[in-house]
């Protein structure tokens, strides 16, 4: 009994201490991320089911109308803490020049964001503006959840004339644009300089042929060292190599995958990767559950990986002594390089009651000012006019150069299933269950079914 009471007291005191600590550590800054405490039911009762059944017909571009009552725009995003703090400054700048509009940002954890969004959409109680993953845009557009922007957003044509083509393409579905590119990224080659020097290789590979040679030169299986590693078999991983070697998943109009995903270029890509795997130059972690690429690269286990600009922050946090080196994706047989586009688009949800103000906010996010501000926390701008801008972090340069040739993944509502088809084909290839051609033929059949299917 005595020990019982002792444990109880100890734990209670500990809890008390923790509470005191957090209370003291809490800075008393005024709430910047929250609009003045708004009771939850300020919005007029909305019908549960939105009544308009078609996207609004493209109207003439509206002239600047006087804003009547003060308006609150709800903006949902998945920014990190640091990015969210910077976002507050962007909001402040916007609100300063747009009196009458208040932006109310809400941060969500990335892993559960889609669930929260879908729940909100199902109930009809939607946020006005959302920063969403580029691959979701065609999906949500197909559901009728997004507002069409071409023909409705003021100055739409002007705005998009300045953005990278790859990121822009991610917003297009069924002949219309349902979002604006907001921030972008791509993948480039990361090479471990000390491993290269140890193998007497002076420079990172410039062509894919050199890449294969270097990968195997850098491999020393006995000492658990590999020349190249990928994070998994999902399409994003081999995508840069896929695109640089001229691979395509479907045709331009997204009507068929036959001759594309199982075409000669694509077959060459997966044959190359399978070959690397069979020779032991590719780390087996990609099949599942091995050492992660970021850790492995920094620790010298993986000589080369292909990854994105976030590695700078990751290494700063986790491996501060590691010097990361970037290089463009090696060129393919055509002598040209390419890579895959990632990033986020900004969209406006159907059911938003303040579409006009929402559009102003979305447009502002694409202004050079806003883009530069967010660039300071690692958000790569989508504006071509900002390439080489002095205010941008220096490591952006190699990524922005790569963005000129980077390609978007197939902007189709069923993309995640197509990704799965390619993922499974890649697995079967690596495991030797099917030859490269047969596996890709199966993927083509599955993808075709997705294109034509319900």
């Amino acid at each position, binding site marked *: 009994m005595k020990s019982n009471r002792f444990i*109880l007291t100890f734990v209670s005191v500990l809890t008390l201490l*923790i509470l005191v600590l957090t209370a003291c550590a809490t800075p008393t800054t005024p709430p910047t991320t929250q609009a003045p405490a708004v009771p939850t039911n300020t919005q007029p009762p909305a019908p549960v089911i939105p009544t308009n059944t078609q996207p609004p017909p493209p109207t003439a571009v509206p002239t600047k109308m006087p804003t009547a009552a003060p308006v609150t725009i709800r903006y949902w995003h998945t920014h*990190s803490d640091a990015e969210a703090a910077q976002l507050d400054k962007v909001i402040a700048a916007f609100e300063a020049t747009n009196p009458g509009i208040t932006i109310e940002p809400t941060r969500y*954890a990335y892993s559960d964001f889609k*669930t929260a969004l879908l729940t*909100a959409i*199902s109930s009809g109680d939607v946020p006005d503006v959302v920063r969403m993953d580029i691959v979701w845009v065609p999906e949500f557009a197909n559901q009728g959840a997004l507002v069409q922007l071409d023909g409705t957003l003021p100055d739409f044509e002007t705005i998009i004339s300045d953005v990278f083509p790859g990121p822009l393409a991610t917003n297009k579905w069924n002949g219309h644009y349902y979002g604006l590119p907001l921030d972008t990224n791509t993948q480039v080659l990361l090479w471990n300089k000390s491993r290269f020097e140890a193998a007497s290789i002076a420079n990172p590979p410039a062509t894919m042929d050199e890449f294969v040679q270097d990968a195997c030169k850098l491999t020393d299986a006995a000492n658990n060292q590999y020349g190249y590693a990928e994070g998994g078999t999902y399409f994003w991983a081999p995508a840069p190599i896929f695109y640089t070697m001229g691979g395509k998943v479907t045709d331009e109009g997204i009507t068929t995958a036959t001759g594309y995903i199982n075409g000669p270029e694509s077959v060459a890509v997966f044959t190359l990767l399978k070959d690397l795997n069979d020779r032991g130059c590719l780390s087996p972690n990609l099949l599942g559950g091995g050492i992660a690429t970021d850790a492995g690269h920094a620790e010298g286990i993986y000589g080369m990986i292909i990854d994105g600009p*976030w590695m700078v*922050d990751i290494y700063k*946090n986790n491996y501060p002594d590691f010097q990361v080196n970037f290089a463009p994706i090696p060129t393919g047989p055509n002598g040209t390089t390419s890579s895959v586009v990632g990033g986020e688009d900004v969209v406006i949800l159907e059911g938003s009651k303040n579409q006009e103000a929402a559009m102003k906010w979305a447009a502002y996010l694409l202004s050079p000012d806003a883009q530069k501000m967010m660039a300071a926390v690692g958000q790569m701008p989508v504006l071509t006019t900002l390439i080489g801008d002095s205010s941008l972090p220096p490591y952006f340069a190699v990524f922005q150069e790569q963005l000129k040739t980077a390609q978007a993944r197939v902007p189709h509502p069923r993309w995640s299933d197509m990704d799965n088809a390619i993922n499974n084909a890649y697995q079967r290839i690596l495991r030797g269950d099917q030859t490269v051609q047969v596996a890709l033929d199966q993927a083509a059949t599955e993808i075709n079914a997705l294109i034509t299917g319900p």
Partner: protein
Amino acid sequence: MNWRIKNNLGKVVSVIILVLGLGIVLIPIWYMIITSFKPQTMIFELPPHLWPRTWTLNNYIAALGKDKFGRYFLNSAFVAVASTLLTVLVSSMMAFVFARLQFRGKESLFYLFLLGMMVPPVMLIIPQFLVAKWLNLFNFAGLIVVYITMNLSMQTFLLRGVFENVPRDLEEAALIDGGGSWTIFTRIILPISGPGIAVVIINTFLYSWEEFAWANVAIKNTNMRTLPIGIALFQSEHLTEWGQVFAASLVALVPVVITFLIFQRYFVQGISTTGLKG
């Protein structure tokens, strides 16, 4: 004498077994603890070490220092306590009906309530959100009503079994004195069912403290978010600050441990003997 020696020997053996088992049980927990004191660079070092080579308090300072952490903690505490108390009340009332009262269709109704355990909760989130919207029950209220609902079936089921085990002779005495159902419920059944109620408290508190999916969508005011959401927010798309996640998770364990400590003493043999003595 013979029996007592055997008994004590049995106890020694038991302790030995328990200690051995403890090793397996505690290794992951131990790992959580030491990882929370490791600097970010060593979180996922391979091969793993069972003793950190460098110690730091930074994870705790950073995690607890995040301006909203204290608030998330208190929010969770409020919701968990409220949900637990109300669940105990509502489910014990319901369990009393099934254990002691009789009416036609009782068993069918019971099976209907059991359905509440059998449906995957995630399937209900969207329609529950619609109901919450209709009743304008979000944030704390929304959490509490749903938490009670989702626990009702399981806890009623448990308590029914507990109440049924209470000897009926006690009630005869109360009935003769003219007591009605409420008297029997509050004066006889509840006090005797200490262990069962303790289990309900522990389980419900744990559930409310850790629930994520509903809290993620039902809390509209970010100041009212609960701890699991707060901890999830340590993760961003590309970079997760695992040291802080571990530190925060360990701190989050504390209230549940306290609740357990408080109520586990009701598992002591002897408290709930027949009660006929005096």
